[in-house]
């Protein structure tokens, strides 16, 4: 099934309905395995004790917050360049989900920082740029809500998304470019990961579980958005028929 064939909303809805139950099951299984690994198999850190296990929620949420914006940027290109009909639906659906994961990342990171760094918040480069990402998510959601016509809102949101995409490399490399309190990159870096496998494996399983959760939520949200647009069109048609 090519991307162009998926452009038909009805066909997309049919495909999503078939795929979603499997995705839900896969997400549940991945979370079961990941949580078991994280809570019972992964060892305590020699310095931090059990609080290191916040990492198994904090790091995947951070990755997904950035993935959400990257997905929105690709969808924005789909809207502006290729005029794919479902690209703006994908973009609109991803925004609240990405914002939620970014918020989870900020909150869990703050709770983790209190016992380990001694403070709930510090204005270092990584935390500040993730906070800016969260503010930009809220800005895009505000833009979607303020412009009434969905297709015009889609184009405006697409441009704002692409402008905001410049923040993603800043977040990724902020711990390298600035002297920050947040620890430097230890998974995706040149020279391979620096995390010991007993913690790295549960982390990657949880990352897969979170990604499956994102995909499940995103597909459901896209279906909801398509239904919402159908309702809006029906309302407009009824209003137009009532006043000839």
């Amino acid at each position, binding site marked *: 099934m090519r991307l162009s064939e998926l452009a038909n909303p009805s066909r997309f809805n049919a495909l999503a309905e078939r795929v979603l139950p499997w995705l839900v099951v896969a997400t549940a299984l991945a979370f079961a395995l990941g949580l078991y690994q994280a809570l019972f198999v992964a060892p305590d850190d020699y310095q931090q004790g059990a609080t290191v296990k916040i990492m198994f929620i904090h790091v995947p949420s951070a990755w997904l917050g950035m993935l959400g914006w990257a997905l929105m940027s690709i969808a924005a290109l789909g809207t*502006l360049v290729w005029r794919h009909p479902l690209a703006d639906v994908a973009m609109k659906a991803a925004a609240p989900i990405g914002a939620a994961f970014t918020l989870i990342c900020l909150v869990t990171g703050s709770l983790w920082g209190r016992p380990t760094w001694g403070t709930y918040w510090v204005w270092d480069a990584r935390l*500040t740029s993730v906070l*800016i990402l969260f*503010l*930009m998510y*809220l*800005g895009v959601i*505000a*833009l979607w809500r*303020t*412009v009434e016509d969905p297709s*015009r809102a889609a*184009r*405006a949101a*697409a*441009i*704002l998304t*692409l*402008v*905001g995409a410049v923040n993603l490399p800043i977040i990724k490399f902020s711990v390298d470019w600035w002297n920050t309190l947040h620890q430097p990159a230890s998974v995706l870096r040149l020279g391979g990961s620096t995390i010991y496998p007993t913690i790295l494996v549960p982390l990657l399983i949880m990352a897969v579980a979170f990604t499956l959760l994102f995909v499940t939520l995103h597909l459901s949200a896209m279906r909801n958005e398509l239904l919402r647009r159908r309702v809006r069109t029906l309302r407009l048609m009824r209003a137009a028929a009532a006043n000839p």
Partner: protein
Amino acid sequence: MAALAALLRRDMRLTVRVGGGALMGVLFFLIVVVMVPFALGPDLALLARTGPAILWLGALLASLLALDRLFAADHEDGSLDLILMGRAPLELAVAAKALAHWLTTGLPLVIAAPLLGLFLNLAPAAIGAVALTLLVGTPALTCIGLIGAALAVALRRGGLLVPVLVLPLTIPVLIFGVAASNAAVTGPLPFGTPFTVLVALTLASVVLGPFAAAAALRHGLD
């Protein structure tokens, strides 16, 4: 080219003649800077230490408020459609409007800043540094604000949307502007390091802002 010059002259004349223009922005800047000592208290040492930040925040908010003058009036009376249909490339036309906006809004803020620095007990080195960083940074504020103003041009009830969209994007300019001003007064960091980054941010936004704003206008008005 003649069309762009005409657009520039028209925008500058309109700003000066209609709606208070340049002086309204300076007045808002003055009011904000005057209100901060009421909030912080009259401790002169504290005001001197936070002075560059107060001046930068005041300039940022003043340029933010002046943004709706960029496109809204032209959109209402139809001249924005004429500009879109004109022969000059839309990006250059938008850049000309941005230049007019900066000359009539940003530059008066830069000129007013040294006087307001006296209210905040800033040292002469700090006043000079703030004025210089504002001179370099206000074009960046204008060009980043251009994007928000273009995105919200067709909205009747835009409200606080433009500040919500624009302020996160202006955070780097604010950070490096204040860092450069503080570096000129205290601190081991030389003035040149954050100042160079500020110049880079301005140059990047002067190029990217008109492109993004033109794209937003094209897609938003049809």
